[in-house]
């Protein structure tokens, strides 16, 4: 902005010999940058396609053990593929400008003024991209909600500080602190919390649902691969949140029947953390009862 008292900008640099001649205007910078962009994008996509099939075995993604995992991985591939050109768009054009138009190259600059077309094209492309991602995500949205499925197994999950309790109402309320599931049978989890908020997360199944005190939330999945996985708490729930995890055993239907009938008597609670015993094991029972006992008495 100019005003009467403002002189034209005076560069701070000391005077010296004149700059080199400006880059010839004939150089088609946009075409060059576009080629670099296309090459980078192509390389990245090829690398990605080569790497993608192996990420599970390399441990970058958790094992895909349920019907939900594949969907999630597919969505992730599509999103990553679409992100690559966008990312290189910004980085290549920005980086190219930073090098090619650096004033050390002696350019005079200042010629690329706004055209009316470019913003419109930009808006249209970004809307199209976003709309595609949205519609694509939407098509998976229903499957996120709890599905009834065929002959589902109901598991009541109760989060408490700092362990998970599971009960199987279809099997005489058999109780356990480790989750055992039959393979290829839909499971519906009814999740509750007795104290604060927890989040029931089985990374290998691709499901997560908060356990909210006073409410029951649901989520479903169908385990498809026999193996041992893990339930984690994904919502900071106090002192031993880091240790609030418990194994998930996906077993054959026969094994599950044997196991679940052996569980009819409630097992004593013990935190069977799969990897580490905390320094101080939570003395759950005493602690839980002592929380604000005085206020309970008055209320």
């Amino acid at each position, binding site marked *: 902005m100019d005003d009467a008292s403002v002189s034209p900008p005076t560069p701070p640099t000391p005077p010296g010999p004149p700059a080199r001649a400006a880059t010839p205007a004939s150089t088609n910078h946009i075409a060059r940058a576009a080629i670099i962009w296309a090459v980078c994008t192509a390389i990245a996509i090829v690398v990605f396609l080569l790497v993608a099939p192996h990420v599970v075995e390399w441990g970058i993604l958790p094992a895909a053990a349920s019907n939900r995992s594949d969907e999630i991985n597919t969505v992730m591939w599509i999103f990553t593929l679409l992100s690559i050109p966008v990312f290189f768009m910004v980085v290549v054009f920005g980086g190219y400008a930073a090098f090619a138009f650096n004033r050390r190259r002696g350019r005079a600059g200042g010629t690329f003024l706004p055209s009316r077309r470019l913003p419109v094209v930009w808006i249209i492309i970004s809307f199209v991209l976003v709309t595609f991602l949205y519609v694509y995500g939407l098509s998976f949205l229903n499957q996120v909600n709890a599905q009834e499925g065929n002959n589902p197994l109901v598991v009541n999950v109760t989060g408490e500080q700092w362990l998970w309790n599971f009960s199987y109402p279809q099997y005489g309320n058999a109780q356990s602190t480790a989750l055992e599931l039959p393979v290829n049978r839909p499971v519906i989890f009814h999740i509750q919390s007795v104290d604060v908020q927890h989040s029931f997360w089985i990374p290998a199944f691709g499901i997560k649902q908060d356990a909210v005190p*006073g409410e029951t939330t649901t989520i479903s999945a169908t385990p498809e691969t026999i193996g041992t996985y893990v339930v984690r708490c994904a919502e900071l729930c106090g002192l031993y949140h880091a240790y609030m995890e418990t194994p998930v055993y996906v077993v054959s239907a026969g094994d599950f029947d044997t196991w679940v009938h052996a569980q009819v008597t409630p097992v004593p609670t013990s935190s069977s953390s799969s990897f580490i015993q905390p320094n101080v094991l939570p003395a759950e029972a005493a602690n839980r009862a002592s929380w604000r006992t005085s206020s309970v008495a008055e*209320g």
Partner: protein
Amino acid sequence: MDTAVPASGHGEHAAASHIDEERKVRLGMLFYVLTDVTFVIFMLVAYPWLRSYNTDQGWFPFQHMRLPDQGTTVTLLLLMVVSAVFYFIGYMGIRAGNQWILRIGMLISLVLMLIALVGQIRFMGSQQFSTGDGTFADTWLLFSGYHIYHLLWATFLGLGVTHRAFRGRYTKEKHLGVVTIGYFWYWAALTPILIFILMTALPPKL
């Protein structure tokens, strides 16, 4: 959060400049009142929320709990509304250049508001229920407490405006303080109406 900011001018030296001082102060005060409005709105959200979820029948657990007296609620509400009306009369007075209408209007509105303040504190203290008697009781106490906080600010501002009115600080041309504090005053009178609608007009028992 709170809004009540003494809206004294920035100083005369800038009066000759391009800046519209009156507009600036009015706009600033409106924004401060707006932030208080958002605070109240978010607080009021607790009511429909807790009522509709009614977790473990915790909204109104004691069916025989004595409710806040409706007559007192309405009286306190009317005190605030009448106070705001008198404030407006005082403002119209100074707009017409009449100092005495301003002074009497301010004085009456201040006195009414002080009565409302004392009454609200006594009313809140005299309830049979307390915190921990269900979320209806909790929200009632929360809103009443916040209303008292409003009234304390209004007392401070009202004392200032009335005092300055009696000192003849406001003129027909220059009465910005009356205008801007009026914004807060009318809003403070509106909140008990909102609280009344939620707490008394809607039956608390589900």
